[in-house]
């Protein structure tokens, strides 16, 4: 499933920033910001899957939500099919929304408990007036079968389903408008391993079938690694490393990435005493008051004074391997 270089970018994100004001003083002079996303660059090519990993709170969801303009970006460009959508009005955006869809993390809260499955899947079709009546019905049944749900389920409510089934409903809803890009925000984190595998395989299957492009967000590296072609590692609102999956795992450059990878428990007891494990301390800086230098400085086993004072640039160290570190590991 490799993508040839000549394929055009479907999505390009440049210098994306999203700041949340945390406290506004009485007279609006000093404002504090939580820099949830602080200058992120990446691109996604047609038909590929870009994985985004990172610890909780590093800004993965915010990035996803900003791309689909659920949140207004503070700064930066989001170029979708060659068009910068950050400047679009809500009406113009409406057309784009058809092409970008989302699958959410929590299979319990992402479906309206008071709506029937049929109506949940129908909502995007109705909103964009794609289909009506019999045709709508057919499309919905078709979608349900595509994601592996019996059409007899159409009249049920979400609470009558298991987590895995609910996630299928969510996927069916995302597929309804035949989008070009699907942003999956931790779609398997809440599921049991066996069900996780079902969903991951389903996503892969659908990608093949409909030539979909995914942005796959997760904090579990194993799942991201399984499904992605390229992976971006985020840390405190920034992408610190971005490379193809093979490259990232064989030539890990950023100490954070390597810490992250080595922290993942390996389901093989023979490897339990493996060496060179890096255990990262959880000494995180205050997100409203970031250090000037490298944000990973406080936890990095290799940090120097330079890291403290000078912010490392996010650069392409090797072809298609980007990293933000003064002293890449490889």
């Amino acid at each position, binding site marked *: 499933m490799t993508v040839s270089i000549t394929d055009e970018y479907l999505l390009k994100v440049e210098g994306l920033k999203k700041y949340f004001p945390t406290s506004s003083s009485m007279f609006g002079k000093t404002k504090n910001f939580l820099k949830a996303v602080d200058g992120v660059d990446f691109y996604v090519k047609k038909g590929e899957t870009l994985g985004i990993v990172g610890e909780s709170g590093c800004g993965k969801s915010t990035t996803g939500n900003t791309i689909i303009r659920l949140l207004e970006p503070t700064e930066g460009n989001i170029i979708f099919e060659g068009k910068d959508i950050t400047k679009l009005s809500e009406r113009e955006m409406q057309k784009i929304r058809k092409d970008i869809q989302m699958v959410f993390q929590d299979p319990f809260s992402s479906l309206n408990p*008071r709506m029937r499955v049929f109506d949940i899947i129908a909502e995007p079709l109705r*909103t964009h007036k794609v289909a009506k009546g019999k045709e709508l019905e057919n499309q919905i049944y078709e979608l349900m079968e595509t994601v592996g749900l019996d059409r007899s*389920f159409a009249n049920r409510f979400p609470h009558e389903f298991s987590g895995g089934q609910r996630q299928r409903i*969510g996927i069916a809803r995302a597929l309804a408008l035949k989008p070009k890009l699907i942003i999956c925000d931790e779609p398997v984190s809440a599921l049991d391993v066996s069900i996780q*595998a079902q969903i991951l395989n*389903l996503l892969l299957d659908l990608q093949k079938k409909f030539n979909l492009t995914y942005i796959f967000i997760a904090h579990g590296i194993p799942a991201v690694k399984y499904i992605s072609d390229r992976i971006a590692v985020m840390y405190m609102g920034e992408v610190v490393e971005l490379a193809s999956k093979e490259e990232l795992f064989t030539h890990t450059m950023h100490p954070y990435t390597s810490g992250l990878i080595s922290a993942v428990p390996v389901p093989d007891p023979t490897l339990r005493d493996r060496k060179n494990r890096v255990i990262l301390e959880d000494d995180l800086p205050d997100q409203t008051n970031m250090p000037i230098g490298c944000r990973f400085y406080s936890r990095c086993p290799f940090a120097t004074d330079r890291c403290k004072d000078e912010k490392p640039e996010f650069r392409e160290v090797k072809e298609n391997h980007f990293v933000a570190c003064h002293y890449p590991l490889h």
Partner: protein
Amino acid sequence: MEAKLKTSTLVETNLTKGKKPGALIRWVKLLLQSKTGTVGFFVVLGVIVVAIFADIIAPHDPTKNNLEAMLQPPVWLDGGTSTYILGTDNLGRDILSRIIHGTRVSLLVGVFSVILAGIIGIVVGIISGYYGGIIDNILMRIVDSFLAIPSILFILVVLAVFDPSIFVLIIVIGFTNWVTYARVVRSEVLSIKEREFVKASRSIGTKNRTIMAKHIFPNIVSSFIVISTLSVATTIILEASLSFLGLGIQPPDVSWGGMLTDGRNYLATNWWLATFPGIAITVTVLGIIFLGDWLRDVLDPRIKGRK
């Protein structure tokens, strides 16, 4: 991999086994599971039936006085007659018939004022909670102001100006009690709008109005139903209190509160005047509260989910 994918998309059927029973049967089952819920349901049903068919059920004209039969005790006491099963009041009117007719006022005032309050409260609450910001700020300050004025005072002053007819009572109680709903609804909306299904809908490009109507509203309805049942109970008692202060429903209309108030002066000597309407209020309120409690249990998705 191809083969694997096939199996993974196999239609899942273990939930389709055994067709789900119809909604009605399911509700009956849920109802019968709770003793208090069943009691509450039948009390409320009974009260509604009595209210609707008051004219047919009542043995006498509730306003017809009989100076020959003043203050007759109930049938089982010395001096009671079977003509007036629950006795008569100080104008010789049949207490049973008055209670039967009083059901109407109590229910009308209780139910409609709550509906009115609910409509205003829900609209304000949803708008305030959903949009937030300056709109929320303005609306909530209004709510705060209303909350700081005891509603009974408000009602008293208004009733001092307009004759306390059923209609006026409904309007004034409705217009003072909406703030409670607005508060509750707003805080519910605040949490619901953060739920992912709202985000999902927004990400599709659904209009705010549609989101409020289709996603937010249905999810606050159940908590609204719960507080509103309780509110119906409170309103019935409120009407009684207003009667006590001389501002309840006025004769010839009959209300339980009015009966209770007029009868209070006879508590020491002719206890049945105030006691029977008192029992009617208590039983009805009890029924409504039981029903409300049951509704809270069955409408709470957490509880339902647990089963």
